[in-house]
């Protein structure tokens, strides 16, 4: 069963993304939340950059998909942009060693 861990985790993060998105209940909170989630996945991407990336890409994509499914307040385009910006910010914060704490 654990050979298919990316699919299992993808399903889990779809549900988590959906629940978080539904629970936000306001556009501003939704935007801040997705930015923080982007930072989270950016940090994760930094950690897995030297491994096979396809499973992680699937997981990240599924989270975003789940978040968009549950989004009733914010603009989907803004959410996608903020998520990508958050990921880039999260990744480069550690890649460029702006914060050396690992």
């Amino acid at each position, binding site marked *: 069963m654990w050979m298919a861990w990316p699919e299992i985790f993808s399903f889990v993060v779809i549900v988590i993304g959906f629940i*978080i998105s539904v*629970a*936000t209940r306001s556009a501003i*909170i939704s935007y*801040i*939340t997705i930015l*923080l*989630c982007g*930072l*989270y996945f950016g*940090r*994760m991407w930094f950690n897995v950059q030297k491994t096979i990336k396809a499973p992680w890409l699937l997981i990240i994509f599924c989270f975003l998909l789940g978040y968009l499914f549950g989004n009733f307040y914010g603009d989907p385009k803004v959410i996608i942009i903020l998520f990508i910006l958050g990921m880039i910010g999260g990744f480069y914060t550690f890649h460029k060693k702006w*914060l*050396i*704490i*690992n």
Partner: protein
Amino acid sequence: MYGPFDLVDKVKRYFWFSQEEWKSILITILALTFIIGFNDGRKTGAIDSFWFYNLFICLIVVVIVVLVHLAGQRIVGLDAGFRVEYKVWWYGIIIGLVMALVTRGNIWVILPGGILIHHLSIHRLGYFRYGTNTLAMAMTALAGPLANILLATFLKTLEIWFNVPVSSVLLLDKLIVFSWVYAIWSLVPIPPLNGALILFKSRLMYAFIFGTIGGYAVLVMFGIYSFIFAFIIGAIFWLLFYILFERGAWSF
């Protein structure tokens, strides 16, 4: 092992935080302040002067609680010949912030970070065992939550035994509550939190400690302040864990 003078000397030499640790502490304090201060207890949800006042009170509370926690760990670590280093846990901080936003600050998820232990070669001379070991790590990790509990207990004792109106002062009331919450969350057995270091030492010891501290917190909610009852709850946890899991885990 070498007495209080040795400990005082080690504290003078190694207690202070490095620049990297200050960064970690600053990030932790800011994040935790937001998490506990996001909901100011009113139903309006307005961001006005009271919200900022509440946030400022929370900032003071978080600074005290985090520094007491780390100071406890550092002193116990130095006493055993280890230098303790604090590191922020990014995933935990972000999860806490997201949970604070999503639940409007009603649920505090406090997963700030953990400690690393560095062996001070000269100061461990004569110790058995010489190097780092799981017991020393567990005891050092446990010192943080215990320091928080001692602080909260001291304040509550002032109120119960000496009629000092601690709970009516917003700052002190929050200090008691947050000390307990921080102590309990830091005992969650997720690496790199303190609870994981205790769990890796001994599952039964973890069951007893978590049962005692969690049990005391539950008793406090019912207005009962008794460490004796807390130890009894901890012993029940220990026994249940032994009967339901540990005994079976060792029978091949």
